């Protein structure tokens, strides 16, 4: 059993709390309690999950799993009888939460307002659900009903009811710090005032019941969730100072204090909460995501379900203090998936191996080795959960109901309700797919998205995510085809909307999407596709366009930077990474990219600083260690460079560049030839050499590419046994032994340092003791098939018979499978060259090729071998 560090733990959840708001308030002395707290413990940013929807996120936080395992997708779910939808409930959670595990260990927990927690679970301790503070109707006399299942144990209901604060109770004394012009405003007309009042009352209710439970009950674990910061921000972040152009000045004056006052009130509540604790209680304050408070605030929201989440920023706050926790330190790399593993570790309990997070052991003063268990879900016993007959998979129930409707056993709900249910179902699948994409579980996401796209053809959002999944699983053809069809759809929608009146446009569900993110996101994915095809110039052009329209998206600027690095545009790369860091100064990739751009410009000291910053955020970053080594070599600090390269190979043992540097340093600057041997042996054993391969389907332009590379001065491996003919008048450039690659690889050393042509289907038979640079020829499948048929003398058949669909499908499938294999190989770099692009605009393709092979080609000489006359089977639509 791992050492137990914490006796008691209190987790305080502040939905949407963000350091960007907190740090200035601390600086001004306005949040003294939190300031003291972070000086006595560790703190840092915590990464959210996508999509940043609170029910999904707080459940991930309390379980250690993502939505695909825990089952809470969004804010709503269908009623089991298909008569409508309801707010998401605790019975839909499919896994144990931390309080269930603690229950099984005999510990007592108090859980207040966690989302979603209604009906309250029968745990050892007290659970007050998230419906506790909700106002459903005005107070009549002393009557303010509480929904069934709000409190466990139920006998505490009457007592705990007393601590709810109704909005009607609040007075100007409470509200003026939030709304300084309250007395001049029209309370009945201004909905924002109601929002502020309700939110403050809710926060006061949650706090009052929490302090009561803190004082009056014994507990080992307590979790308190406050949604008020999130609500204050959604209501009034647009009015948070400084004043933004276009906002009416009077509204700004009315609401500019709301967010700040909200934070200050949380600091006041925190003071009280902490004052009721023993010194030996470990306290964690955490948010599920941040909230854009500066120039990153969106100017308007898309008209789609879950749109308010667009205001959320990807980083929340994490702070922890208590016995055995470091003091005054900043920690990096926390994720909301780390909370449950950390809590289990604090109690000395094993962490589920299938939990996706990790314990934040970097917060402890001593080294603690966590214990692990296979899967908490497989542990039987009393976990204080709802009985199985109360547990409910709302989506499964809904499907069962649908089947009954289709069989005619029951009537369908009325049209509006069924549309609402269908929309809710689609959106939940969409959210789940995004959550899976966030976890890089692309294949599972594709399984969800493909039917969604098929059934909702006009929902461009679904298609975009699917295109991203295709891209990420290297199904580049499918990605290309989907992007093209989405572009057509987008154009159609734009055309339709251009003919609409403004009123009609406003009525339309997604009226604003056209002008906002959608086309840009499509262009962004297309840019990523070009990157994958090693067509950096085209990728950069798209990213540049998107970065102007969506200036606050860090991913766009990161890819501008990456594209610039590939195109050796060091100054522009530097600018792009600086923009990234202005959005998120703790982005390790941006620091690393900035470092590379500085290194390549000869600014070694500055580059080194950036690489070190990158490592301070993510130490397990082999490339950053490697570039530190490279910078130190340039600075002639060879002994330190040795350490950096050693760190790189310890993290990435196959990093040949680092082994190569180490061999070089030991042989030369450090005069330790014995040490060099180890790395030379590694290089000799693992890497016999590099081979350049030209590949693709037969008749996709591989022979032309061989000619190009020959003209570029590369050494070609060919036995010239197959002579030129009318199909390939300039020769086939083949090597007979390649055909036997499946059974005989002994000839490969002959290809070392040379270019050899290997058809796509044979690539998976390449051994892994070489590195390969593959120039993969892409050509329209119809052209390829036509050219093959002509070569086989079957062109008459081609004219008389239908298009060979079977062959087309078989080749497409083979190419997809080869692409997937290539993606999984660490010793392969690939560039995709489009045959028609090479014919039509050879300069751009030659530039990509030159950058990929790191060779300076004579462009004119190469252009001379690209013979347009040989492009004989062109498809008109290409």
């Amino acid at each position: 059993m791992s050492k137990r560090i914490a006796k008691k733990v209190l987790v305080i959840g502040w939905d949407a709390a963000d350091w960007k708001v907190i740090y200035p308030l601390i600086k001004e002395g306005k949040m003294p309690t939190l300031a003291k707290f972070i000086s006595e413990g560790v703190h840092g940013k915590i990464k959210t999950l996508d999509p940043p929807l609170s029910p999904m996120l707080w459940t991930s936080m309390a379980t250690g799993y993502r939505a695909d395992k825990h089952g809470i997708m969004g804010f709503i779910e269908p009623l089991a009888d298909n008569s409508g939808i309801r707010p998401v409930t605790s019975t839909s959670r499919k896994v144990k939460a931390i309080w269930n595990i603690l229950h099984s260990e005999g510990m007592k927990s108090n859980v207040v307002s966690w989302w979603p927690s209604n009906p309250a679970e029968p745990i050892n301790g007290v659970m007050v659900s998230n419906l506790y503070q909700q106002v459903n109707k005005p107070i009549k006399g002393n009557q303010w009903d509480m929904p069934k299942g709000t409190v466990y144990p139920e006998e505490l209901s009457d007592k705990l009811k007393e601590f709810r604060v109704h909005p009607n109770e609040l007075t100007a004394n409470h509200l003026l710090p939030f709304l300084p012009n309250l007395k001049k405003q029209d309370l009945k007309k201004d909905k924002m005032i109601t929002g502020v009042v309700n939110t403050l009352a809710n926060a006061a209710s949650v706090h009052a019941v929490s302090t009561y439970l803190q004082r009056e009950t014994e507990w080992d674990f307590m979790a308190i969730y406050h949604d008020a910061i999130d609500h204050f921000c959604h209501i009034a972040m647009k009015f948070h100072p400084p004043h933004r152009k276009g906002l009416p000045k009077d509204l700004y004056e009315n609401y500019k204090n709301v967010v700040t006052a909200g934070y200050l009130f949380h600091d006041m509540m925190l003071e009280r909460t902490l004052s009721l604790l023993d010194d030996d209680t470990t306290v964690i304050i955490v948010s599920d995501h941040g909230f854009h408070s500066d120039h990153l605030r969106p100017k308007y929201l898309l008209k789609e379900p879950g749109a308010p989440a667009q205001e959320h920023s990807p980083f929340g706050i994490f702070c922890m203090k208590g016995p055995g926790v470091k003091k005054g330190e900043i920690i990096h790399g926390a994720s909301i998936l780390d909370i449950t593993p950390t809590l289990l570790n604090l109690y000395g309990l094993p962490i589920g191996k299938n939990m996706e997070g990790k314990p934040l052991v970097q917060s402890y003063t001593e080294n603690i080795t966590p214990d692990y268990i296979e899967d908490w879900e497989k542990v039987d016993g009393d976990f204080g959960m709802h009985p199985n007959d109360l547990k409910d998979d709302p989506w499964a129930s809904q499907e069962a109901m649908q089947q009954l409707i289709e069989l005619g056993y029951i009537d369908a709900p009325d049209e509006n309700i069924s549309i609402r249910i269908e929309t809710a179902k689609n959106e939940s699948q969409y959210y789940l797919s995004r959550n899976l994409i966030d976890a890089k579980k692309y294949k599972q996401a594709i399984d969800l998205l493909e039917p969604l796209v098929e059934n909702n053809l006009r929902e461009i959002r679904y298609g975009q995510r699917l295109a991203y999944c295709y891209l990420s699983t290297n199904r580049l053809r499918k990605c290309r085809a989907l992007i093209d069809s989405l572009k057509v759809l987008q154009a159609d929608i734009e055309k339709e909307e251009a003919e609409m009146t403004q009123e009609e446009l406003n009525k339309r569900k997604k009226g604003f999407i056209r002008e906002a993110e959608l086309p840009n996101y499509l262009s962004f994915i297309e840019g990523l596709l070009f990157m994958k095809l090693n067509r950096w110039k085209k990728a950069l052009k798209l990213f540049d366009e998107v970065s102007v329209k969506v200036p606050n998206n860090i991913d766009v600027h990161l890819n501008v930077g990456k594209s610039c690095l590939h195109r050796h545009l060091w100054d522009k790369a530097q600018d792009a990474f600086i923009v990234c860091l202005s959005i998120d100064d703790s982005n390790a990739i941006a620091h690393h990219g900035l470092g590379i751009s500085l290194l390549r410009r000869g600014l070694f000291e500055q580059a080194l600083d950036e690489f070190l910053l990158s490592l301070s955020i993510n130490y397990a970053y082999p490339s950053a260690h490697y570039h530190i080594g490279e910078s130190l070599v340039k600075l002639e600090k060879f002994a330190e460079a040795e350490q950096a390269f050693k760190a790189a190979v310890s993290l990435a043992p196959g990093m040949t560049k680092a082994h190569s540097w180490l061999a070089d340093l030991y042989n030369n600057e450090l005069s330790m030839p014995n040490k060099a041997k180890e790395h030379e042996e590694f290089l000799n054993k693992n890497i016999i050499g590099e081979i350049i391969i030209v590949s693709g389907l037969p008749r996709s332009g591989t022979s032309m590419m061989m000619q190009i590379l020959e003209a570029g001065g590369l050494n070609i491996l060919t036995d010239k046994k197959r002579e030129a003919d009318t199909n390939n008048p300039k020769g086939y450039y083949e090597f007979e032994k390649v055909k036997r690659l499946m059974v005989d690889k002994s000839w490969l050393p002959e290809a070392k340092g040379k270019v050899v042509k290997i058809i796509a289907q044979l690539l998976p038979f390449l051994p892994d003791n070489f590195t390969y640079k593959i120039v993969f020829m892409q050509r329209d499948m119809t052209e390829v098939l036509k050219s093959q048929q002509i070569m086989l003398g079957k062109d008459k058949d081609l004219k008389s018979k239908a298009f060979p669909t079977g062959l087309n499908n078989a080749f497409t499938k083979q190419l997809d499978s080869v692409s997937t294999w290539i993606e999984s190989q660490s010793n392969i770099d690939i560039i995709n060259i489009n045959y028609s692009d090479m014919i039509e605009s050879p300069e751009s393709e030659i530039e990509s090729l030159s950058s990929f092979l790191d060779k300076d080609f004579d462009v004119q000489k190469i252009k001379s071998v690209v013979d347009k006359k040989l492009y004989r089977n062109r498809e008109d639509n290409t």
Partner: protein
Amino acid sequence: MKQSEKEYEIPKGGSLGLLALGDIGLVKWREKRKEIKEQRKEIKKDRTKTKDDE
């Protein structure tokens, strides 16, 4: 009221500070409101009585 050796004024209209004190602050504020309400009732009763006497 007295809590952790601090003394707090309880204004009739409450305060954020009282809400931030949690259950105790809330209960004390409500007691204060009730007390004032009772006092008002008493005053009103007295006034009505005086008027009747007059």
